[in-house]
């Protein structure tokens, strides 16, 4: 028998509301299949299963809000042998709700789920008082209404979630920051030439090219691609680049495009367009939320020349691109006008040093001078 638990879909998620089961008891499921839709503060996420098997029992009911790690369903079958732990299942220990030992003890006595109590203590820690307040109104459970969270609530929740993840980042991750100016004329020329031959729907944006350049360079800088978990660095299994996508109603998400280093530019562009569309429609898959091994953000569109980003835990690095601007550029003793971009790296000093980070940015610059390889 296997237990299917609500996976953590990012450092800023500690609970989710089941909207819908996509499977029934007795149904056979395959690895990667979407079995449930769960509402988080960021999106209604299609949750995938990571084992083959047969659904035995659906425990969580649509409309219920449950904490990350709660057993949602039980499965049996072939999957038991194949079942492998995936990042989606790992709940970083720091996601455990901070609470005082007294609060934990009292919560246990009162049968209060401490993960659902909102804390008023330092860093949102749950205090004894919070537990007792949470226990008091033994109000009847409201009838579950499996509807997505209303927009205004979602926005407020998203602000809170982003705040929590970024606070954790700044509290736990000793950031270092590096910046490099990269000439872009070769990349721009290559892209313009290629796009000339492409019909509008197949045009490739610079954003896709930059993602590919980062991913290819990361192959040689594995200490920047992965997670900091349980006091150590775990390299990512692939280069799954989280793309920071701003949402029109405010807030942002940074879901992953998988194996960016192995995709053609055209494939990457299609994946990026699809991801942006689904992120803005609020429909993402659980693996996209939990798998990013690094994040790339591009704020050049808003006109800034550089962005020094905050690392999204448990990742250990973030690459930022600013706007491509024309600057006086000296090369080989001659001065000319050239388009350049400022690329930055925010690195986690626990996992890497500025020396390696600097070499990474230099390699990224060189990669962008060879756009034909992208």
């Amino acid at each position, binding site marked *: 028998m296997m237990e299917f638990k609500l996976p953590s879909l990012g450092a800023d998620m500690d609970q989710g509301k089941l909207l819908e089961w996509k499977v029934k008891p007795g149904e056979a499921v395959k690895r990667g299949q979407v079995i449930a839709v769960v509402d988080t503060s960021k999106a209604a996420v299609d949750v995938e299963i990571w084992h083959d098997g047969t659904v035995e029992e659906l425990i969580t009911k649509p409309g219920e809000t449950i904490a990350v790690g709660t057993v949602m369903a039980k499965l049996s079958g072939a999957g038991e042998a194949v079942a492998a732990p995936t990042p989606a299942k790992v709940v970083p220990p720091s996601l455990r709700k901070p609470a005082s030992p007294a609060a934990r003890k009292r919560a246990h006595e009162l049968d209060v789920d401490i993960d659902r109590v909102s804390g008023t203590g330092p860093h949102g820690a749950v205090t004894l008082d919070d537990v007792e307040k949470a226990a008091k109104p033994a109000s009847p459970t409201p009838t579950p209404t499996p509807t997505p969270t209303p927009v205004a609530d979602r926005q407020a929740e998203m602000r809170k979630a982003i705040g929590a993840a970024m606070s954790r980042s700044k509290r736990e991750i000793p950031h270092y920051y590096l910046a490099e100016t990269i000439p872009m004329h070769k990349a721009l020329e290559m892209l*313009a030439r290629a*796009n000339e031959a492409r019909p*509008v729907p197949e045009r490739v*944006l610079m954003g896709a090219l930059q993602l590919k350049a980062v991913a290819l360079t990361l192959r040689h800088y594995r200490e920047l691609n992965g997670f900091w978990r349980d006091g150590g660095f775990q390299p990512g299994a692939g280069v799954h680049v989280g793309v920071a996508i701003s949402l*029109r*109603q405010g807030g942002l998400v940074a879901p992953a495009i998988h194996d960016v280093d192995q995709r053609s530019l055209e494939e990457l562009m299609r994946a990026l*367009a699809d991801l942006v569309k689904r992120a803005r429609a609020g429909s993402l898959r659980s693996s996209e939320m939990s798998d990013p091994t690094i994040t790339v953000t591009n704020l050049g569109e808003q006109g800034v020349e550089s962005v020094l980003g905050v690392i999204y835990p448990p990742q250990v690095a973030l690459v930022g691109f600013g706007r491509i601007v024309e600057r006086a550029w000296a090369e080989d003793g001659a001065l000319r006008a050239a388009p350049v971009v400022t690329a930055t790296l925010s690195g986690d000093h626990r996992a890497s040093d500025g020396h390696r980070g600097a070499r990474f940015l230099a390699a990224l610059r060189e990669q962008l001078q060879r756009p034909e390889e992208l």
Partner: protein
Amino acid sequence: MKPEELKSQVVGILATIAPELEPGELRGDKPLRSQVDLDSMDWLNFLVALHERLKVDIPETDYAKLVTLDDLLAYLTQKLPA
């Protein structure tokens, strides 16, 4: 296509990309992308939709000419069969 008809089609397409758009507040003589907050992906999607709806192909080299909504409408009028 009449100018008003073209404009309402274009603004309609724009509204599918930027649902929060208030067509009444859109200024034809101000830079379009910053008014509507279109990033390059939105812009590309906008052009793809124009391409599908109006059968107009806008090469990248012409982007620079299309700063305001008025620019875009004039450009499209020229490109569309009379």
